[in-house]
């Protein structure tokens, strides 16, 4: 494997600005994320990280600057196009398809990447994805729940299904929106361990927005701290932990 | 010119009655996210309650009106809320829409079975004699319908803005969660909304039935027109529903008089589709908030 620092950035954020009315939510943020990195995006409430996240997802057009994934501008792109470009995501709130089985949830997450519209109408019902979906289900230790309706699962299990869906199409970049929110401690440890293992096995790049400091510190390889719409610190978890500016921002905010 | 004035005025009179129905529609939507597809039947039925009072109970006309109003408030307000909206709302909006459609059929068919398919005469509240106004012959009934409807809208607005209960109702409509925290009895406020809707529908029924006669199928067009009026008004304001109602009433009368009568019914529909697609927040509405 080549040195990740030398390769092209998977995600590139350049001088992004975004205002709502008179409020400058994001003020000229720039950073790159390289292949295989696990980047944490943290900051106190109102620091602009959600706005930035939505700009990265192409949902909010930035006022200035640009976001590109694998060299392609994402602004104005539809979510399905982003996904087919190799960007997976999870949601803050639960986002499974409750009246479909776990297996069907996962297959759905991959099927639109297989063949054409017509081949998906006339081809096999599972788009040839059952085995791959089962591998992913096994990876997240959900095999016993394979044929259950996703809506009948516990909160934490649904979070795992949600994550598995984000990985199903084999994306190069996955954006995790507060993955730890509402998950109990036992499940959280399992979840974090699985995410880390996936990153190691597949070299997938992660960008994580999270409030749970311990989760971010132990999962991420690099952390960017936002406050009042600007980057105030950047570095490894250890560097961030001891950074006085960051501590002040959190205590002050 | 005098014909125009006549057409305009009678359009405003019907429009004001439409507005009453549309306002009830809007209030119920705000308070309980209920889109009542039986709203037209809610206007059709009270007239039959009055007829029952007159023919079966032998009450005088004015006492029967009171009887009709009370029965409407109980059945179309209280019972509707408790037996249909409350249990079905948790199953989702579309399910509730379908349930109110079934309710519409139920009311329509009941009226037909119990009172016959023929239109029943309904006593006029006021004499229909034309009076002379600026050289135009306008009917006194139109003028009084317009006056009463507008008067009720003004009273309702005063109630919602000036009384404690009214303000609690507004708070409930805007944010039930916060209202609850502030000590508002949210459930009771929602119930009041349903009662007011029923009363408005009954009033509209009493004003409009002398013109149309009491017929089981009256609700079909009324419900649609009230919805269109509500949509024109953006579905979230009394003011909007009022403007919407008046506008539809006048437009309808003008097209019937001056344009083809064949496609008269098509105009409000085209208007409806256009508004929903171009400005779903309504002509006078704002996209944010559900302010009364």
């Amino acid at each position, binding site marked *: 494997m080549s040195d990740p620092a030398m390769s092209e950035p998977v995600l590139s954020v350049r001088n992004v600005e975004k205002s709502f009315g008179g409020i400058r939510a994001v003020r000229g943020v720039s950073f790159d994320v390289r292949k295989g990195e696990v980047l944490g995006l943290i900051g106190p409430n109102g620091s602009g990280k959600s706005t930035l996240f939505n700009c990265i997802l192409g949902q909010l057009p930035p006022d200035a600057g640009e976001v590109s994934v694998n060299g392609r501008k994402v602004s104005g792109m539809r979510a399905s196009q982003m996904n087919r470009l190799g960007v997976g995501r999870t949601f803050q709130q639960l986002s499974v398809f409750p*009246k479909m089985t776990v297996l069907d949830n996962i297959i759905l*997450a991959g099927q639109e990447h297989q063949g054409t519209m017509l081949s998906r*109408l006339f081809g096999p019902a599972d788009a040839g994805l059952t085995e791959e979906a089962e591998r992913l289900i096994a990876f997240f230790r959900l095999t016993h729940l394979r044929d259950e*309706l996703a809506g009948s699962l516990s909160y934490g299990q649904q979070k795992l299904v949600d994550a598995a869906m984000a990985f199903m199409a084999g994306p190069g970049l996955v954006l995790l929106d507060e993955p730890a929110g509402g998950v109990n401690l036992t499940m959280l440890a399992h979840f974090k361990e699985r995410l880390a293992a996936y990153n190691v096995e597949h070299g997938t790049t992660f960008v994580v927005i999270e409030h749970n400091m311990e989760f971010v510190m132990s999962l991420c390889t690099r952390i960017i701290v936002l406050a009042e719409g600007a980057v105030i610190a950047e570095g490894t978890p250890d560097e961030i932990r001891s950074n006085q500016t960051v501590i002040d921002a959190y205590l002050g905010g | 010119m005098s014909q125009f004035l006549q057409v305009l005025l009678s359009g405003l009179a019907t429009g004001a009655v439409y507005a009453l129905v549309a306002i009830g529609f809007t209030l119920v939507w705000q308070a309980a996210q209920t889109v009542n597809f039986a709203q037209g039947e809610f206007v059709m039925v009270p007239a039959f309650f009055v007829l029952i009072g007159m023919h079966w109970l032998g009450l005088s006309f004015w006492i029967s009106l009171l009887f009709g109003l009370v029965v409407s408030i109980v059945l179309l307000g209280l019972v509707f809320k408790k037996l249909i909206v409350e249990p079905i709302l948790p199953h989702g909006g*579309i399910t509730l829409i379908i349930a109110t459609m079934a309710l519409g059929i139920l009311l329509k068919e009941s009226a037909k079975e119990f009172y016959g398919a023929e239109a029943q005469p309904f006593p006029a509240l006021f004499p229909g004699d034309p009076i002379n106004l600026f050289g135009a012959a306008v009917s006194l009934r139109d003028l009084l319908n317009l006056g009463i409807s507008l008067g009720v809208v003004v009273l309702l607005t005063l109630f919602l803005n000036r009384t404690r209960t009214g303000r609690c109702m507004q708070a409930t409509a805007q944010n039930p969660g916060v209202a609850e925290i502030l000590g508002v009895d949210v459930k009771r406020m929602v119930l009041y909304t349903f009662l007011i809707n029923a009363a408005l529908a009954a009033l509209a029924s009493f004003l409009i039935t002398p013109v149309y006669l009491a017929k089981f199928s009256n609700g079909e067009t009324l419900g649609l027109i009230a919805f269109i009026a509500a949509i024109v008004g953006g579905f979230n304001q009394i003011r909007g529903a009022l403007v919407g109602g008046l506008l539809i009433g006048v437009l309808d009368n003008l097209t019937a008089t001056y344009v083809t009568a064949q496609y008269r019914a*098509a105009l409000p*529909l085209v208007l409806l*589709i256009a508004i929903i697609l171009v400005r779903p927040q309504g002509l006078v509405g704002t996209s944010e908030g559900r302010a009364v």
Partner: protein
Amino acid sequence: MRGLSLHRSWRLLLIVALLAAAILLPLGQKNYFIYVLTSWLIFTIAAMGLNLTLGYAGQISLAQASFMALGAYTTALMTLAGWHWLVSLPVGLTLCFVVGLVLGYPALRVKGHFLAFVTLAFNTLVFLVLRNEEWLTGGTYGLSGMPRPEFGSFSTDKQLPFYYFTLGVTVLAALGLWAIVRSPWGRAFKALRENPIRAESLGVDTRRFTLLAFAIGSAYGGLAGALVTPLVQFIEPGSFGLAHSLRILLMVVVGGAGYFFGPFIGAAVVILLPEVLRFTEGYYLIIYSALVIVMLVFVPSGLIGIFGKLRARFWPRRQVRADMAEGARLP
């Protein structure tokens, strides 16, 4: 897994038995009875289409009767002009598919009650055009004298052969819908119903599937219309009004929206039951609509849902993944 395949073979057996019943039932019966059975099949087809739009894809439509009208009038005009029914069919279906696509556009912007009203307005507009454009549609007098199709020596002029012809078309239509809802498309439709935002983020082109849900559902409405014309041999705008769209919608909901066999049951309740309950006379619709409301309060997933609930109670869950468990919870 064994439970699952056991369940499958039971279901297959049940389908074969029902199909045999459908073939044998009309033998020796009066023409009127066969006529009622035929209209049950036709409304089943229309309801199957709406079930795709509403039950599977979660998009409400109050315009299904207007697509029956498009199919019926296309067939009527073309067969009256001397074309064979088989030629008029694809024309009618294509027309409905295209108009259905157009009707789907509002669904990209608005949902729920707004969509219900747009489609309702559309249905009424179609009705007005049919009533007013006399040169084409015969206005309120409608069109009559349409011939029934002949296929070589198989003539459908008599009631029984026409019934078998309709049964054949219904089976084909059901197989077609089965293929769609079993395919990845079916999964995408359901995803659109359950969580459109999540579906979009997983690469599902929700715009395209919304339009397709309307277009395919409408084409099924057109197919039903194409069968109405030769059955009744007289059509007029009043047969395709809003009340009929509502009737089809209730068929879907009563049978069980999002269940494959829901429309068969729902259409049976609406078309066949009144014949059985003749003695209730005019009260039938009152009883029916009251029961619909009661059902929506207690079992919003429809009659098949009741069946599923009972089975879950008496036949404890062997597998959750029974296809009975996939019905819609409408948004």
